[in-house]
């Protein structure tokens, strides 16, 4: 019996001397190697983490940007975005890599200092609103969730109001309008800009997403999407994207890693041998529709340590893709 996703870190970490830290940092940087491996098992001091973050950004390079659908002005996102529930020690590394979108930013108890320093317009902050799926008529609850999140974080607005979990039935989406009314009120007050949904698959994606395209109200859709997704899901996503809806994939590693690990040939083709996470993200982000445009604009990842950061974010970071010999077209 093993835990889901086998632990890779030793449980007790030991400190590393200044001299050994510099030595390992220089050696990894010169070799263009994997920094996380050099420091596996070490407990870094805050200043060592800061230096490490700088070296990491330098080794991996920045992420390119892509248009996020066409319904949200000229909004551009990095192909991989971060979440509020990242390990906070990775926030600086994410920002240094140029990541410009925070999923679930409304859940912060206070705005982390790394983000307080960033120019507000340069980063897309999203608030997840939990009235859907169980109480989509709770207009006041949805409204209050956003206003209290703004008070706590000190932000003036969220870019995207995301109906968290999405709807359980098409009928409820069409008839129980409280969540959407809350969005309209908040938009009028300048507290949110665009309407998104994080749609879980309570009913098959082709059915609920077709209804969402038809409704014409949703600017971005986040959904479970990964390597091995059914063709019907790929097709409906292409249709949604062609309708201008920004598409964000989630659970890319969690739901695709086993299938990907079982296909070394695909991993090799993605220039990601031995790096399942990197392969999963590349697979999803390189998918193209019949018009040659990406189907998935971006993917949200959940990274909890530098190892995962290098593997996942490295899927599209400019220097890492060059080192891997992988031609990623933003």
């Amino acid at each position, binding site marked *: 019996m093993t*835990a*889901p996703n*086998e632990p890779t870190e030793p449980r007790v970490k030991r400190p590393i001397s200044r001299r050994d830290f510099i030595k390992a940092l220089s050696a990894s940087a010169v070799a263009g190697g994997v920094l996380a491996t050099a420091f596996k098992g070490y407990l870094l001091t805050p200043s060592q983490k800061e230096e490490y973050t700088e070296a990491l950004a330098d080794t991996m390079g920045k992420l390119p940007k892509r248009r996020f659908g066409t319904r949200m002005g000229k909004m551009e996102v990095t192909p991989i975005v971060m979440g509020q529930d990242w390990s906070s020690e990775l926030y600086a590394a994410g920002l240094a890599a140029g990541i410009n979108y925070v999923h679930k930013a409304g*859940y912060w108890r206070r705005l982390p200092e790394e983000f307080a320093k960033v120019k507000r317009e340069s980063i897309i902050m999203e608030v997840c609103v939990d009235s859907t799926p169980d109480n989509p008529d709770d207009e006041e609850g949805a409204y209050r969730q956003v206003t209290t999140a703004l008070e706590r974080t000190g932000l003036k607005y969220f870019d995207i109001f995301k109906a968290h979990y999405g709807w359980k039935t098409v009928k409820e989406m069409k008839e129980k309008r409280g969540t959407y009314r809350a969005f309209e009120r908040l938009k009028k007050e300048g507290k949110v800009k665009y309407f998104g949904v994080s749609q879980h698959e309570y009913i098959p994606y082709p059915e609920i997403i077709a209804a969402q395209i038809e409704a014409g109200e949703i600017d971005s859709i986040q959904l479970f999407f990964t390597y091995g997704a059914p063709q019907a899901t790929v097709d409906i996503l292409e249709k949604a994207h062609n309708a201008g809806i920004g598409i964000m994939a989630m*659970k890319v590693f*969690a739901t695709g890693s086993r299938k990907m690990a079982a296909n070394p040939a695909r991993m090799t083709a993605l220039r990601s041998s031995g790096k399942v996470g990197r392969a999963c993200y590349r697979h999803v982000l390189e998918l193209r529709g019949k018009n040659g445009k990406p189907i998935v604009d971006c993917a949200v990842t959940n990274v*909890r340590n530098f190892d995962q950061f290098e593997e996942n974010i490295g899927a599209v970071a400019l220097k890492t893709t060059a080192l891997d010999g992988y031609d990623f077209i933003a």
Partner: protein
Amino acid sequence: MCASDYTSPIHWRYSLFPLSDEAGEIIDLELITDTAIYLVDEDNDNGIGAVMHWAHILKSEQTPEGLWPRFVNARTGDMSGRQMTNSPARIMESLAVLLDTTEFDDAIRRSMEAKSRSTTGDPHDSTE
């Protein structure tokens, strides 16, 4: 303490939850809670990702009374037996501290209210 080798398929209501065996569909949310708390306490970075996913599903499966069925069919979401529990709130409390997040505040509050009703003999509480 460890989770299962088997996880529920993605299209199940309780997707990617640990199952007792490949054919089993019934999960015990108190056992899931113990596993989750273990993974959080161990600071197992990869395990925490799974725990967060479980917590998100559990949040959306909380009953209006603030509780959860203790035994549930992971495929359908149907309750198995009559026993209710508030143990998943412990997972959410651990994550709220770890992630400095408000995400679970409402679910934790509702669970505490349910617990307080049970100690005052509120007939709506169905904890056994």
